[in-house]
């Protein structure tokens, strides 16, 4: 419990608050004392002046009467009147010995105990002396009241702080425990777990939401990893099975020519498998981004031209038309070899997934946002919903399952495009498909 941050914070705040209350109490105490003392002083001086006036106008008897009268009034000040030679004439303070001005004397109180009295002594002339004072006990009593009040307040603050701190830290601890519980569950393999939110969107809720988004992302990555491993296994199972059958057949056959044929066919299968591996490794190498060091300024139109020129005869043999549409050089910053591979893959896709007689155009242009390379065919196109997934590794359209291919071509295109900061997208060319690579503005 002491390790809990929230509890420690609550304790710290309670202590600070208690200190604040104590300081406030002390200040109020001082202030009241000051105010009271000043008030008493004022009363005492006023009384002294009034009685001195009385002495001058009404004479000795008048003042003695006034002193006695006031001395009897409960709650009033203390008075004393002395005659020449210090003879006490009237009032409780008349026995006190004091010189002119302010002084504090100790006097037996009415209850018998001795108490401190602050008094003001006035010399009235002719040996007469007037004493007006007040019992300090009253001020002290008031101190006690203030102090008790604050002690209660302080205790209240501490109790409330402790209770609040405990409740708060329990609450926080529960929320933290929920988070760490989810993390533990995920470590143990339950990837579907998420941190519950309170819906208050406080900072802890926001943290939990971020945490959940991170878990979603990890989940996606895990899923794609699982998917890719599954796909690799699945995609390799067919050629590996075929390879095995071919080799077995070769082993069984007695005819040397047939055996050679079987082994040759097995090598073709094996090369296809190796090609899949090479493709995967190539994609991951490109995704690592190490190739960016090899970026040079180059002409995208020239790269596309090289590919079109290389593939046009083969396309023609296959009964399709491949052409380049480019107005002039389109400079981009990139890796010439990888960009050539990107164009090759798109062109091969275009040639492979269209019926005989189709035309595939490679268009290189510059629009307001930057260089654009499009490979447009007039084939059957694809369903919109499938377009995004086509860039995934091993994703193949149902109708393409029968055509040879590793299912890595577009994934490689996506990786190369990403390395160049370009966007790869598939669009409906109505009819047909447009694969468009939009590069960032050059320079």
């Amino acid at each position, binding site marked *: 419990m002491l390790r809990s941050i929230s509890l420690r914070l609550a304790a710290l705040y309670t202590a600070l608050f208690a200190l604040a209350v104590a300081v406030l109490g002390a200040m109020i105490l001082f202030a009241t004392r000051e105010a009271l003392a000043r008030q008493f002083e004022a009363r005492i001086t006023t009384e002294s002046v009034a009685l001195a006036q009385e002495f001058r106008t009404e004479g000795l008897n008048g003042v003695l009467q006034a002193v006695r009268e006031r001395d009897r009034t409960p709650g009033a000040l203390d008075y004393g009147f002395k005659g020449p030679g210090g003879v006490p004439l009237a009032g409780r303070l008349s026995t006190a010995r004091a010189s002119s001005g302010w002084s504090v004397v100790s006097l037996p109180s009415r209850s018998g105990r001795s108490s401190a009295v602050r008094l003001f002594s006035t010399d009235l002339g002719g040996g007469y002396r007037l004493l007006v004072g007040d019992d300090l006990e009253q001020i002290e009593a008031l101190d006690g009241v203030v102090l008790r009040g604050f002690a209660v307040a302080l205790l209240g603050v501490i109790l409330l702080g402790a209770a609040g701190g405990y409740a708060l830290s329990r609450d926080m601890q529960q929320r933290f425990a929920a988070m760490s519980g989810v993390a533990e569950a995920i470590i143990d393999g339950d990837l579907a777990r998420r941190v519950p939110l309170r819906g208050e969107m406080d900072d802890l809720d926001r943290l939990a939401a971020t945490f959940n988004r991170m878990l979603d992302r990890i989940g996606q990555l895990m899923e794609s990893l699982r998917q890719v491993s599954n796909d690799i296994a699945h995609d390799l199972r067919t050629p590996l099975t075929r390879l095995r059958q071919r080799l077995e057949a070769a082993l069984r056959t007695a005819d040397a020519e047939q055996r050679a044929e079987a082994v040759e066919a097995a090598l073709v299968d094996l090369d296809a498998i190796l090609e899949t591996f*090479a493709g995967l490794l190539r994609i991951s*190498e490109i995704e690592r981004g190490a190739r960016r060091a090899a970026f040079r300024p180059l002409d995208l139109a020239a790269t596309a031209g090289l590919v079109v020129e290389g593939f046009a005869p083969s396309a023609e043999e296959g009964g399709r038309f491949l052409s380049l549409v480019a107005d002039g050089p389109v400079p981009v910053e990139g890796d010439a070899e990888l960009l050539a591979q990107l164009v090759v893959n798109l062109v091969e896709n275009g040639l492979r997934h269209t019926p005989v007689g189709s035309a595939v155009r490679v268009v290189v242009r510059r629009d307001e946002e930057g260089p654009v390379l499009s490979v447009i065919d007039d084939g059957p196109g694809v369903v919109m919903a499938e377009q995004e997934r086509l860039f995934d590794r091993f994703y193949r359209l149902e109708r393409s399952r029968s055509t*040879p291919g590793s299912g890595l071509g577009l994934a490689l295109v996506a990786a190369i495009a990403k390395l160049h900061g370009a966007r790869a997208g598939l669009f409906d060319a109505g009819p047909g498909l447009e694969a468009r690579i939009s590069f960032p503005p050059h320079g």
Partner: protein
Amino acid sequence: MKLLLVEDDGEAAAYVRRGLSEAGHTVDYAQSGREGLNLAISETYDVIILDRMLPQVEGLTILRTMRASGVSTPVLLLTALGGIEDRVEGLEAGGDDYLVKPFAFSELSARVNALARRPPTQAAPTVLQVADLRLDLLKRVVTRAGSRIDLQPREFQLLEYLMRHAGRVVTRTMLLEAVWGFHFEPRTNIVETHVSRLRGKLERGSGHELIQTVRGAGYRLRVPD
């Protein structure tokens, strides 16, 4: 030819050695990089086949040391699958060619033959001649038996490469690299279509096969005996 093979995998090395010996080469073999380096420096070879992935001393280190000690023998590097970066590094370290493992033996053999230096004839030939076929590198003109043949720029490059390696097997991959600069294999056999077009232009009406197809390996420009 006298070859040096530096390769730590014994089984792979035995296979390569047997193949190269059958092709009439003398093959020295070193299993470790250090041993290979010693042989490369003390003996004279036509071509060195060097595996990049060697225990203890790395292949590239050996290559650099070799070049630093003045050994200029052509080196064919064997690199791991998928390593695009490897090729660039290998060539920068002084390698002359590279081959990705696993490879077809025919590919290795063709590349070793292509690397071996021919006895120097002319310093820099401006004209290549094989039998009645003549290729002028400066004028960019090809004639056969005196009559001019019109070639596309890529066909010209293709023929130039074949003529430079006349009499030797040249693989599809070598042509892809040399003519198109593609260090990857497209699914479409673009080399085949281009070679057959070139062949059509060269052999029109002659009935005499100049560019031979070597089954399972590649092409060879025939040199008359």
